């Protein structure tokens, strides 16, 4: 079963944009549920995003790509 890695709607205050500051795994690698798979940064504050399930990682937003709250940055399945 696949699951989406989302930037939570309440991750930071306001409607400012962020960027993907780290991917800890490469596209196609296997990740375990709960692993920190990416970091997203907004206003120089970094937030961790974890794998919702165990499976193969598909990266949708590349390193340094721009994101907004609610965006899908990848898929695990």
């Amino acid at each position, binding site marked *: 079963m696949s699951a989406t890695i989302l930037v939570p709607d309440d991750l930071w205050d306001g409607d400012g944009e962020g960027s993907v500051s*780290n991917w800890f795994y*490469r596209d196609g690698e296997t990740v375990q549920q709960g692993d920190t798979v990416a970091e997203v940064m907004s206003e120089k504050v970094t937030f961790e995003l974890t794998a919702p399930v165990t499976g193969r990682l598909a990266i949708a937003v590349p390193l*340094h790509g721009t994101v907004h709250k609610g965006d899908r940055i990848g898929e695990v399945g």
Partner: protein
Amino acid sequence: MSTAESLPAEAAAGRRLTIAKAMSEAIAQEMERDPAVLVMGEDIGRLGGVFGTTTGLLDRFGPERVRDTPISETAFIGAAVGLAAAGMRPVVELMFVDFFGVCMDAIYNLAAKQAYFSGGQVACPLVLMTSVGGGYGDAGQHSQCLYATFGHLPGLKVVTPSNAYDAKGMMTAAIRDPNPVIFMFHKALQGMGWLGTVPGSIAAVPREAYTVDLGRAAVVREGRDVTLVGLGATTHHGLDAAAELEGEGISAEVIDLRSIAPLDRETVIASVAKTGRLVVADDDYRSCGVAAEVIASVCEDGRAKLAAPPRRVTFPDVPVPFSPALEHPLLPSAAKMAAAARALVGEREPA
């Protein structure tokens, strides 16, 4: 510690960390293990370190052991040397190595000589962690490496990790070491979003405490035709250059020095004895530098028979410019290392 195990590319499984998180975790585990371990520096408390080296420590261990200091390296690094003499194990952060000037007397006249001057009766278990490196337009007072400035002085161990696995193990070893260790971390590898991150610096890191021996280089890629030596960020340039050269039929061995003092001359000599060619990258200034010391060590030893004169890929002897248009072309790169390697291979077999 086996060298191949520290290779990020081979760390296929397990939890991955940035160097910043690996350093924070090592310090936290040593604070847990030994009540004598404490942390001091500018913005290392509430902020968790400008480069993320002390994340979470204040909440976990409190302000007595995790102390934000005024902007006076002279005062707090001097204090740390005294604390170390009195039996504590201070970890202090010099935010940018560029500002060593105001605290150098405490470092090289007091800390580095304490064990010698006391006939071994008073140790100095101090860790000074400090950021090095440029490439992000922060100009001449926030971009230097100064590996050789510290590596030149007897009584100091000077190390720099290229990946998170080594960073945790080397920090743990540094804290447990009875003598002063200068722990340099490269800004480009730290995993802080605002500085960019070299992906190869992120590695699988065991949750439990472990040590990586200080003073040991690692062969991070094996090869036959040429040895590419780097440290910190230039290790990754070497790996990228080796990947590029492979496509041209040149097999490059890559060595991560990991330690400037002591310098693991044996590992480099053994490699060059096999390949006959040597390129050393160093993002510190060129003259009297680590690259020069590595090349001199290989030549002086004589066991490695050289097929071509060794080459250095370094920052030139000028202050680091602010303008990216000026700074970037001066930095070592994978392309420069690959070009140097090609030239060396070509010297034996001229076209």
